[in-house]
């Protein structure tokens, strides 16, 4: 898809709210998982899967498809909810997250979950995997694009910077990475745990084209993705300035919800808040 109007953006925002509701329900049922980083990643995932990427859920192995690699694998609930809503597998499956004998593992698995490109969860791998996909695309002269999403805390992993160097060295302009810059990781504020600033300067100095936007503004995400696709001879890093726990008031910027699921009361409040958001958006259609 290329063009869009105001209504399309509202519909995408509605989809994002729906994904957030799925995430809350999934984690509540699973009684484990990572709400904070799942909620912060939702808008970019919606922009990719419901607007920007070339894909066909009926042909998940189409060699010409665009690929998305969730390097921050703990945001699996967000990815699963998006894949289910996009038609890769039944939405019913979401209820069985993290349960024995079920498909949806705690972290993404590529061998048997339709639409999942790489098995992640051990941080720092995804960008390297995306490099491989991008190199194959160049070698085969295919015009697909590859996207990867990293957590901000994740970029403490040395492998990320190996991959950053290699992507720039090989001029992988078919690669767009994103950082979910929510400023929080398990042990606290990223700048206290292991200083990351200036994130943008770091990536620029590694030879990347960089774009910095509000990571919850779907229109801006779409435009940034388009800009990244047309940029030549450099990979692009889109820094998504986000809020951990986005969309649920008591989870926002609350590090306690990095890896703790909502209890029943919290789930009810969260769903109520998201339903309100949904109604407000619907009213603008």
């Amino acid at each position, binding site marked *: 898809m290329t063009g869009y109007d105001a209504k399309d953006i509202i519909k995408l925002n509605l989809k994002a709210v729906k994904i957030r509701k799925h995430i809350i329900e999934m984690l509540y049922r699973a009684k484990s998982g990572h709400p904070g980083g799942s909620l912060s990643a939702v808008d970019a995932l919606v922009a990719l899967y419901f607007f920007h990427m070339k894909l066909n859920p009926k042909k998940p192995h189409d060699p010409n498809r665009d690929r998305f690699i969730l390097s921050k694998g703990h945001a699996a609930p967000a990815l699963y909810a998006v894949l289910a809503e996009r038609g890769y597998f039944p939405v019913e499956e979401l209820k069985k997250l993290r349960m024995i004998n079920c498909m949806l593992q705690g972290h993404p*698995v590529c*061998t048997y979950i339709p639409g999942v490109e*790489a098995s*992640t969860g051990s941080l720092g791998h995804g960008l390297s*995997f995306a490099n491989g996909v991008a190199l194959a695309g160049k070698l085969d002269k295919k015009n697909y694009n590859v996207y990867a999403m990293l957590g901000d805390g994740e970029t403490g992993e040395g492998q990320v910077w190996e991959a950053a160097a290699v992507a720039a060295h090989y001029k992988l302009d078919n690669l767009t990475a994103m950082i979910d810059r929510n400023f929080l990781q398990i042990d606290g504020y990223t700048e206290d745990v292991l200083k990351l600033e200036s994130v943008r300067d770091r990536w620029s100095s590694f030879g990347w084209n960089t774009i910095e936007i509000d990571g919850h503004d779907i229109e801006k995400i779409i435009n940034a993705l388009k800009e990244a696709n047309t940029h030549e001879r450099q990979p692009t890093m889109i820094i998504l300035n986000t809020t951990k726990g986005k969309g649920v008031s008591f989870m926002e910027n609350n590090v306690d919800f990095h890896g703790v699921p909502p209890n029943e009361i919290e789930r009810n409040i969260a769903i109520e808040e998201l339903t309100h958001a949904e109604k407000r958006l619907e009213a603008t259609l």
Partner: protein
Amino acid sequence: MSKKVMVNPRNAYGEALIELGNKYNNLVVLDADLSKSTKTIMFAKKYPDRFFEMGIAEANMITTAAGLASCGKLPFVSTFAVFATGRVYDQIRMDIAYSNANVKIFATHGGISVGKDGVSHQMIEDIALMRVLPNMTVLAPSDAIQTGKIVHLMAEEHGPMYARVGRADAPLIYGKKDVEEMKIGKGMVVEDGSDISFISCGTMVEPALEARKTLAKQGINARVVDMHTIKPIDENLILKCVKDTNGIITAEEHSIIGGLGAAVAEILAEKNFSTKFLRMGIKDTFCESGTPSDLLEKYQLNEKHMVKNAKNILKN
């Protein structure tokens, strides 16, 4: 005694890659600034578009290979055995083994006969590390001819595989015909015997053959098995050795923990086959710098110690 023909298995790897590059246009090769040593440079010269220099960044190299495999490529990844396994264990575990990616890790400079570079470059734990990974096939060919064949087999069969060879030139054991029928997972009886079985892999097959000659002069008839595949291990051949001979000695340029000897021991114990048994390998220690022959003597991994050990376990 006729003079032995020495050929480096690394060269056999480089030559096999060139042949396979012609046969499989999806074959790609990655290296981490060691292509001159691993001999992937031979492929790089012939097929520059399909060779990826990844720099001194092994973790990225392993995962990148998995990404290439996800797009239908057949990646061979090479560096020294220390850097190809221990350094990148998590990457191999998640992106190759768990993901069942069709990536072939071909490591050189395995074992202590790497020599003077010392412990940082002497890999004696790689077989153990790779053997515990589900989906992973583990290979250690013995000479250049077998290495060439194994590289072909790695390309033909789908799935994660790890192969290691040593650094040094190695005497030829086989002719091309000898390995025609070779299969992954099926050990080879190089020389038959009825008194004791040497079950060796990699660089330890040739000294076992030498030990066999010495023992023959003393009336001991040794069988020499080339167990080029450590996983999946050839159970039937191990059991045959138990039945046909009076003892088993395993030999590998690797720790006695977790490698070929351990794999054989597991089979013997679980099948309740009682036999005289000894593991030759590095005895849970780091080694040191030195010439390969000095190291193999000090750490008791040569023909002389094989002869001694064979006589001892048959006597007791």
